[in-house]
Structures are given as structure tokens and as C-alpha cells.
């Protein structure tokens, strides 16, 4: 018996598109969410590329634009190589450390000390916080990470970072090892890092504590840092992960900000001169960090607490809470966050030096980042998974807004005419970021 001859009805080449549409109607959007990644060879190499663009704006001061690119190559079997490139363009006005005054103050911009360019002086109106309004800087930073499994339960990471600005260069290396125990429910990790920085401020490096008007400058300076981190991560339950870290680091060398000066104030509140700041040439920091993450069916939350203390007598506490809310069958999420920060002042922090004991001053800095303050950050992030991005595990679009408010702590008894001026103002800043992963 023969098979019955028949007219062949060829099924057209567009079947798949129509089928995808039909499957979507049947199954909902999940059918088209991602392309299958399957092969008959070894696990394929995958690429993941993260890009983000951030805009940062401080009220009346600095603004920055920061594009970021992250490339992660997954070789399978736990081996990955990641490359991060960041570019910052900062511009605006940066406080130079001097106090407001009842009189007009005139300063020479650091760039003005360069012999080849004319001096750029800037003046500050009475009652205003002195800021270098010519401030602009660009930073290019790159980081390379190589993660590789050594044995079934042991993972090693090697990394290198560098950061370049026209007056600053930093290189660092890090290495860490993580070991899984207890059926992978516990991970212990140990990491070390080493950093080497060079500073070449325009016009030379000011001699710490020298008179601003003497232009007492030296050549470039360096600083060195080394740190160690010990961590444990514990899976508490299927929905609860806990992480605890202890870390310490020590920096030595030229730790001053070469552009920060301090006002010298007489008993009447008049500014009689300025000095470059002078910080100790070593700083040791220790910190403890605890993070808990929990997940539910449609939400997840993370609470982290950090305590940091250093031998400059700065103690700080950070608490951060974020909640991620999935909507629309886990394709979209909202993530509100709240961060609280408080620090005490360095023991040599002083908003000004009084003329009476100018000669006896040791270390001194009026950099508000070393003063006592507390700050609150409110954030909201929105993320959305992107469908069908070819060979990758699925893309994501995200947008983030953060509002930061810093409030100065402590009370300063200003002499004479300075009373009534806001000597150490706080800070308000806003951050906008959009990102794509594909």
C-alpha cells in the first residue's frame, strides 16, 4: 500500500510571529517576556550591560553629571569579569572653608596660582558663605573585577580600580576569598585592599597650617591606604538573609584637602587672615555593618545599620531602609527608601581660628564634612523589566530620585560682628538617575 499522494500545504515562514501573538493572548505577557537561551554546547557566555546617567544638584553649590557603564561577562560556572567606567563632570561653587564675614572677602582661585594663566580672583559678598565659584572638575574612574570559583564552595575575587582627575590620581587593588559552609547557608569572606593616591594641586600643594597669603607651596604629595574586611552572610530562612561585616582601614600621608582654608577671627568678629587647614597625617577607621534582607511574595525589604569610628574622634551611625514593591506580576516595582546619618565632629574641627591663640593651634580644619551633622535622604526608585532583549537574561529600565538634607549640629559662639550670620550652613541636594540594563 502506498501513502496517498496529496497536495502539500506549506506552512508559511511567519508562523512564529503569529504564534507568539497567540501565545501571549493565551498566557498573558509572560509568554513573550524573554527569549529562550538554550544550546547543545557548554553553557553559553552571556553579557550584561548596565548603563546609568545621574544628575546631582546641590542647592546653590555644585552640580554634577555622571554617566556610568557597567559591563559584566559571565563565563558560566561562577566565573565573571566586570568592568565599570564612570565619568563625572562637576561644576559650580565649592565652599573654601572660610567663614562668612560682614565685609567683602577676596580670594585667589587655585587655578589662578598657575603662572601661565592670569589669576582668577573671586569675591564673596558680606554675610555670604565663601565659595570658589570657578570650581569645575572632571573625573574618570574605572574598575575591573575578576571573580572565579576555586573549588565548589570557594570563590575568589581580584579587583583593580583607578581614578583620574587633573590634580588627583588614585590606584587600588583588592583581593577577597569567600567560602560557603553549612550547605551554602553560611558564607564567610575575607578581603584586603590597598590604595595609593597622588595629589598635584594646581599651583603646588599648600604647606599644612601655613598662612594663605604667603603661598607657601610644595610639590605633589601622596597618601596610602590599606584595609581589611571580614564578613559573614547567613541564610536565616528562605525569605531572610542576614549579613554582618567588620572592616578596618588606615590611611597615611597627606590627608589635607589642598583647597580648604580657615578664617582667623579677632574678638570683634573681623577676619584678620586665613590659614591652610592641617590634618593629622594618619587616620584609622573601624566599622561594623549589619544588613537584613527579607522577601515576601510581592515585596522585599532591606534594613542596614552601620557604625563607624576613627581616631580623629568622628563617630558615625547610618540606618537605611528600603522596601521594594512589585506590581503587575513582578514586571514593575517601586522602591521607596529612607536613610538617616549622623556623625560627631573630628577633634580638630573648628569653623574658625581665633586670632588670640593662632600661634598655638595644632591640627585644624573647617571642612564641614569633618563637622558634626545629621542628614536624611528620601529616595524613590521605579524599575521595569524589559521584554525580549535577545540573548541576555532580560533588561531593566529604572529611574531614581533622591532628596538629601544635611543639618549642622552643635552651636558656635561667634564673636562680635559675626553674631547672627549662618556660619556653618547645612546642605540640600537632589539626585536624579535613569538606568538601563540590557
Amino acid at each position, binding site marked *: 500500500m502506498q501513502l496517498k499522494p496529496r497536495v502539500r500545504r506549506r506552512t508559511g515562514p511567519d508562523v512564529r510571529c503569529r504564534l*507568539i501573538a*497567540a501565545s501571549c493572548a493565551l*498566557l498573558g505577557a509572560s509568554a513573550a517576556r524573554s527569549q*529562550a537561551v538554550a544550546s547543545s554546547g557548554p553553557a553559553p557566555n552571556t553579557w550584561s550591560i548596565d548603563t546609568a546617567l545621574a544628575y546631582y544638584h546641590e542647592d546653590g553649590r555644585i552640580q554634577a553629571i555622571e554617566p556610568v557603564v557597567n559591563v559584566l561577562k559571565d563565563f*558560566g560556572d561562577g566565573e565573571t569579569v566586570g568592568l565599570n567606567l564612570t565619568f563625572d563632570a562637576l561644576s559650580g561653587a565649592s565652599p573654601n572653608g572660610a567663614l562668612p564675614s560682614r565685609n567683602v572677602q577676596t580670594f585667589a582661585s587655585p587655578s589662578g596660582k598657575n603662572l601661565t594663566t592670569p589669576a582668577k580672583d573671586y569675591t564673596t559678598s558680606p554675610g555670604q558663605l565663601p565659595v570658589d565659584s570657578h570650581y569645575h572638575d572632571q573625573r574618570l574612574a574605572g574598575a575591573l573585577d575578576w571573580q572565579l570559583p576555586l573549588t565548589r564552595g570557594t570563590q575568589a575575587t581580584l579587583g583593580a580600580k583607578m581614578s583620574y582627575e587633573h590634580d588627583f590620581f588614585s590606584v587600588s587593588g583588592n583581593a577577597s576569598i569567600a567560602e560557603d559552609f553549612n550547605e551554602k547557608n553560611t558564607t564567610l569572606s575575607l578581603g584586603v585592599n590597598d590604595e595609593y593616591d597622588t595629589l598635584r594641586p594646581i599651583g603646588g600643594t599648600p604647606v599644612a597650617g601655613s598662612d594663605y597669603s604667603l603661598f607657601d607651596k610644595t610639590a605633589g604629595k601622596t597618601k596610602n591606604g590599606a584595609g581589611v574586611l571580614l564578613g559573614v552572610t547567613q541564610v536565616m530562612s528562605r525569605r531572610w538573609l542576614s549579613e554582618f561585616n567588620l572592616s578596618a582601614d588606615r590611611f597615611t600621608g597627606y590627608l589635607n584637602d589642598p583647597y580648604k582654608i580657615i578664617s582667623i577671627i579677632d574678638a570683634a568678629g573681623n577676619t584678620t587672615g586665613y590659614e591652610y587647614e592641617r590634618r593629622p597625617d594618619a587616620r584609622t577607621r573601624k566599622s561594623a555593618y549589619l544588613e537584613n534582607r527579607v522577601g515576601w511574595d510581592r515585596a522585599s525589604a532591606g534594613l542596614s545599620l552601620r557604625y563607624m569610628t576613627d581616631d580623629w574622634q568622628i563617630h558615625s551611625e547610618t540606618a537605611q531602609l528600603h522596601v521594594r514593591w512589585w506590581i503587575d506580576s513582578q514586571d514593575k516595582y517601586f522602591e521607596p527608601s529612607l536613610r538617616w546619618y549622623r556623625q560627631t565632629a573630628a577633634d580638630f574641627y573648628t569653623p574658625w581660628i581665633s586670632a588670640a591663640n593662632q600661634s598655638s593651634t595644632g591640627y585644624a580644619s573647617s571642612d564641614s564634612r569633618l563637622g558634626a551633622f545629621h542628614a536624611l535622604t528620601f529616595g524613590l526608585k521605579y524599575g521595569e523589566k524589559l521584554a525580549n532583549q535577545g540573548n541576555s537574561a532580560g533588561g531593566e529600565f529604572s529611574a531614581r530620585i533622591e532628596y538629601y538634607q544635611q543639618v549642622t549640629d552643635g552651636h558656635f559662639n561667634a564673636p562680635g560682628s559675626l553674631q547672627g550670620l549662618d556660619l556653618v550652613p547645612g546642605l540640600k541636594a537632589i539626585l536624579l538617575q535613569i538606568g538601563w540594563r540590557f
Partner: protein
Amino acid sequence: MAPPDSNAPAEAIGIEARGEDLLAVVFTAMASPCELLLPGVDEPAAATLGALVAEEAWRVEKKFSRYRDDSVVAWIHRNRGIDIEVDPETASLLDFARQCHQMSDGLFDITSGVLRRAWKFDATSAIPAQDAIERLLPLIGFDKLVWQAPHLLLPLEMELDFGGIGKEYAVDRAYDLLNARFSAPFLINFGGDLRANRAPPRGAWQVGIERPGTLRDAAMILTLEHGALATSGDARRFLMHDGIRYGHVLDPHTGWPVAGAPRSVTVAASSCTEAGLLSTLALLQGADAAEFLEQQGVRHWIVD
């Protein structure tokens, strides 16, 4: 769906350790061994998640099996010739079947099950008489149904069979249920039709596809990161008559097995339903299966 087991499937699930740090929840549904693979999950969690998947498989089986008296399909068959109103899930499957019928120029047809009255792929190896086949052909054709959701009129003597899509549909349904509640890697496998949400930690899923008839029945090992794989064609179900091998894939236009069809076709796609339809349509192309799949631009593996 596949014929009923002589032993009615016991609605029980078991949990097996598959090597270090991988649990498999195993159960039987649609006459197939089914499993849910969960790396890095403890046993109580695996039991909870496994129950979710198994319940969904059994629900779909119960609802759409043509072997059960209490299924929707049996109810439709009891109401031939009457305008009935079907539930939304059945309606969406009927809509899907109609679209597949249209896009395949009638090659995929859920009314073609009547041909089983003539063809028995069993040990008897009997070829039916041509007039027996021709008597059945008028009962085939999705376009003979009166279907306007939710109203269905199944003409007398016609049959509906969701077996060609039921198992893949059940995989996707179970996948959606689990994926909405669980974000760690998992793989759902109902009798060789499978779908994974993401690669397991350190590597990809290794999937063995049966290749009966090949040298020592060697399985083909595929790696899957995420997405679905479906296999059509049962290389064990064929009949030999006068030296000619008749596969069990029947062309609804002729009522005869498709000539030159591969023994099995495996397709990778984003959903199991899509993968299953593509592999079924490929088989129906007969000797042109490979060419058809190339045209669709999907990853596929063919056993001739």
C-alpha cells in the same frame, strides 16, 4: 493528553535530592513523570512550591482530559449539537487553537482526534482501509465548529482533543503561578516539556532529551539557561507495515501519517506552548521539518 494509566495516577508528590544542593519535587500528571527542580531550597519550601505546581498540573489534566467523565471536554462531548457557553479558560484555549489552525493552513487541528478511530498505533500493525479514513475526514476541521467566544456548538460526531497543547499549556500555567511567588531559579518539567525562569547558580540547566532508536538510545544533553523546550514526536509510537514505517503524526487533510516526518523535534522558545506548537507544526511538515524551523529562526534539534 496521553491515554490513561492502567493505575489511576495517585495524586502524591515526592521529594528527591539530586546531587548536592538540588531538590526535585516529583509527581505524575497527564500520564507523564513530572518534576520541579529547585536548587538551594530546603525541603519544606520545596514541598510547598511543589504542591503549587502539582496542583496546577492536576487541575489542567482534570479539566481538559478527554479520558475523564468530569472534564470540560467530556461535558462538551455530551452536549454536541447544542449551543453551550464555555468558561473563560476553555474559551482562550479554543481561540488559541483556532489561531493555530489558521496559521498552519489547517495542519494543526484539535478536531483531528477522530482519526484515532481508524488508526491504532499498537502492536497489531494494521493499516486501516481507505474508505474507513474517508468516512472520518468530514468530521475534521476546526472551521466546522460554531465558535464565537464564549458560545460553542460542536457538531454531532465531532471530537475535541486538547492533547496537542495541554501539557505545554500546563507547564506555562504552573510556571506563571510559581514565578509570581518565587524568584530563585527553578525548572518545571512535565514529561519532557519544560520551562526554566533563570539559570541555576553556577552554570545552566542540563536537560537530557530522549532519542530512542539512536545507537544505544543515547540521550542528547542540552543546556538551558531560561525559557522553554518542548519535544514532539514519540519515536516509540509508530507502526511497521509491509516494510514501511508509519509515524503517528496524522495529516488532518488526508487522514494519513505525514510522510518523512522526523522521529522527534525539540524546539526552544520563550514559552512552552510556543515551543510545543512549533515542534508539532515542524513534524507536520514531514521531510521539510528542518527547513520549516530554519525559516522560523528558532533553535531546534531533530532526531531523524
